[in-house]
């Protein structure tokens, strides 16, 4: 089966600019996750979707980050405006349902200048 697809792989922007990431989960997976992984740390959940609905977004900085899941399949994560501390790898993952093993994409490495 095809894995979780993410794009772009790398992105370099200046602070205060905007950026968007795209994720296509494994076919049939109802749950989709966006994580932020800062160098040397574990992944931190930003938002979790179950089909179209948001399960948890308690750690999403909503003044600058937004995410949506289109028709319960693809998802986009946007940052506007970016800050220096947003430099990280953004990982998308999917699972058949909540609480099940997660399959991760290769991530997008974001650098803020």
């Amino acid at each position: 089966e095809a894995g979780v697809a993410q794009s772009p792989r790398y992105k370099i922007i200046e602070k205060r600019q905007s950026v968007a990431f795209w994720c296509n989960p494994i076919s049939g997976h109802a749950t989709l996750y966006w994580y932020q992984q800062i160098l040397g740390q574990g992944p931190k959940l930003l938002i979790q979707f179950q089909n179209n609905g948001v399960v948890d977004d308690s750690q999403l900085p909503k003044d600058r980050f937004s995410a949506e899941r289109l028709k319960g399949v693809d998802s986009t994560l946007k940052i506007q405006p970016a800050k220096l501390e947003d430099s990280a790898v953004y990982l998308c993952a999917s699972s058949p349902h909540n609480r099940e093993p997660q399959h991760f994409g290769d991530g997008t490495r974001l650098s803020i200048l």
Partner: protein
Amino acid sequence: QQPVQSPQAVILREGEDAVINCSSSKALYSVHWYRQKHGEAPVFLMILLKGGEQKGHDKISASFNEKKQQSSLYLTASQLSYSGTYFCGTDTPGDYKLSFGAGTTVTVRA
């Protein structure tokens, strides 16, 4: 609140054993273990749901002590391919969100 992993790092020679611990201050529903190699995505190893349950993946196994809110990952007869950073992720009965520890970096040398 994220779980606490120990040790932070461990260096092994091929064939040696190691134990990685994961502790939480909260009552847990499940513990997930993932391995991430440098520059790659985390890969799922196993999930533990019941107190005292043990599972295995090749020569990697894990236990979950529900009463102590602790899990341990056992690397037995380590191979070069075991090198990477191991993360535990925990969730609680009332929260679907998985919180990951800071990771344990394992280096296996020939």
